[in-house]
């Protein structure tokens, strides 16, 4: 029982990271109907920025905040420069563009930072809590993720810009007629997604070690989480991410060799798509033809 609970908690910590990245995917999907395959690589690149800043001698949380700001601006720039020209192109064109972005960020990171694994510092002390039930690191990751979610919720629920962004995502035409600059709202959405991804990258880097391919597995889990929660639901993405984290950890501990853990994600994707294509919290998309 003790081991089981331990695995659940460490699964929740991993799940919190998947949930963050899943949330970033859902934000972009809701705003532009597009799955951003480069989300993980953008997060990886942000993590390298944080790593550079920490190595330059900045305190961890200072580096953390600067990285979020840089990622936010970077995400907006990616939308304005790369995504906007293909806004009205067929969906496959846009998908290929995001895959191109994935390769560019990956190669760029490899070129600048090399493909060697780098150690990334954890901001949390390495101690165990509640009779070795969980570690302070896991607790820290969960806490940071929760704080970020609450901040995002408040932004979207209580500010005029948050309201305008929700409106722009739901009905761009009506939003435009209400005077909302929809294009800029999309760019801000990409900025948020990039910053959320940066949090995920920074939180997972001490565990996985930093290298340009660090996020490829995480992206797959995050994608599974987003699908499981229903790709249109932010709450669903978070819950889906947490479920994937716990499931992956338990299955890896009790059922299969941990090298095979990634297949859990693939199996979950297939199960969701076959039995519940709209996920747990998603809404069916009805299109008038």
């Amino acid at each position, binding site marked *: 029982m003790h081991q089981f609970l331990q695995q659940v908690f460490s699964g929740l910590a991993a799940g919190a990271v998947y949930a963050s990245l899943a949330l970033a995917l859902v934000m972009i999907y809701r705003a532009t109907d597009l799955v951003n395959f480069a989300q993980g690589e953008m997060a990886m690149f942000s993590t390298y920025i944080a790593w550079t800043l920490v190595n330059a001698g900045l305190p961890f949380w200072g580096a953390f905040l600067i990285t979020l700001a840089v990622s936010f601006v970077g995400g907006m720039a990616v939308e304005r420069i790369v995504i906007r020209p293909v806004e009205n192109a067929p969906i496959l064109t846009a998908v290929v563009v995001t895959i191109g972005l994935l390769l560019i960020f990956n190669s760029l990171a490899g070129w600048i930072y090399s493909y060697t694994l780098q150690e990334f510092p954890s901001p949390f002390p390495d101690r165990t809590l509640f009779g070795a039930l969980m570690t302070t690191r896991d607790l820290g990751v969960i806490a940071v993720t929760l704080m970020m979610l609450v901040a995002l919720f408040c932004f979207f629920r209580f500010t*005029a810009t948050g309201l305008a962004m929700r409106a722009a995502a739901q009905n761009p*035409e009506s939003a*435009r007629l209400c*005077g909302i600059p929809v294009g800029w709202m999309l760019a801000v959405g990409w900025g948020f997604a990039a910053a959320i991804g940066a949090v995920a990258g920074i939180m997972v880097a001490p565990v996985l070690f930093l290298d340009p391919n660090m996020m490829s597995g995480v992206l797959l889990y995050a994608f599974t989480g987003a699908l499981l929660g229903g790709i249109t639901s932010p709450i669903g993405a978070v819950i889906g991410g947490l479920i994937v984290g716990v499931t992956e950890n338990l299955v890896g501990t009790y059922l299969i060799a941990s090298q095979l853990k990634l297949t859990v994600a693939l199996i979950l994707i297939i199960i969701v798509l076959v039995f519940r294509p709209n996920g747990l919290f998603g809404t069916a998309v009805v299109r008038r033809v």
Partner: protein
Amino acid sequence: MTTSPLPLAGATAGRATPLLEIAQLTMRFGGIVALENVSFTVSKGRIAGLIGPNGAGKTTLFNCLSRLYRPERGDVRLNGRSLRQCTASDIAAIGIGRTFQSPALFASMTALDNVKVGGHARGRSGALLDAATLPSARREERELDEAARAMLAFVGMESAAARPAASLSFAARKRVELARALAVRPSLLLLDEPAGGLNHDEVAELGALIRSVRDKLAITILLVEHHMGLVMSLSDQVVVLNFGRVIADGPPDQVRGNPAVGEAYLGTRH
């Protein structure tokens, strides 16, 4: 605001600039001419009805007015100001509000939030300010909230403020959409088939509501409508479109007696 029942379009020359001027507007889709040399004016404080058979170009004209379409030729002026350089997102700030045939609300947002989005064009402090939750931004947020509640009350929907738009009845959604358009504080309101899909009683209430928008909020109204009883009783001026051309423009009585209008609706007698 003009209060005396003045003679209408055609006789506008020599008077003060009308609120809305449409001049030689032409719009084609491929080989299909949707609007051809459409010209008419609407004076301040009037309710103008735009009628015509299906496919006459009424909604196309609305889409040109709200800049969702860019007309090929011609111009639209509001208070003498040309809309040629405007995009759809400038329309609210310029003073045009509009509703759609089937209400285009933000489905999962509450009625109140929908109306608040309409007030967005009026908000002045930018994103950075409200991210920092400065007092001025907070005050603005409160004013936005109060203004939105007032508009919901104006259209009689205050009790639905907290309900998601998608859960409301069709008639209720139309009212919320009207409140959202009013929250823009327009000088010109475009209503696209406001009575469509409403029952007899609802149409009567709507007529009274549209009149009070004009009388109490001093908003000029251009409405597309198929419900002849409503158009004829509400409008000070009726413009008839057929195959993208204006075939009649005048007070309701005059338009009703116009033989060309009868032909457009019923066909030619042989």
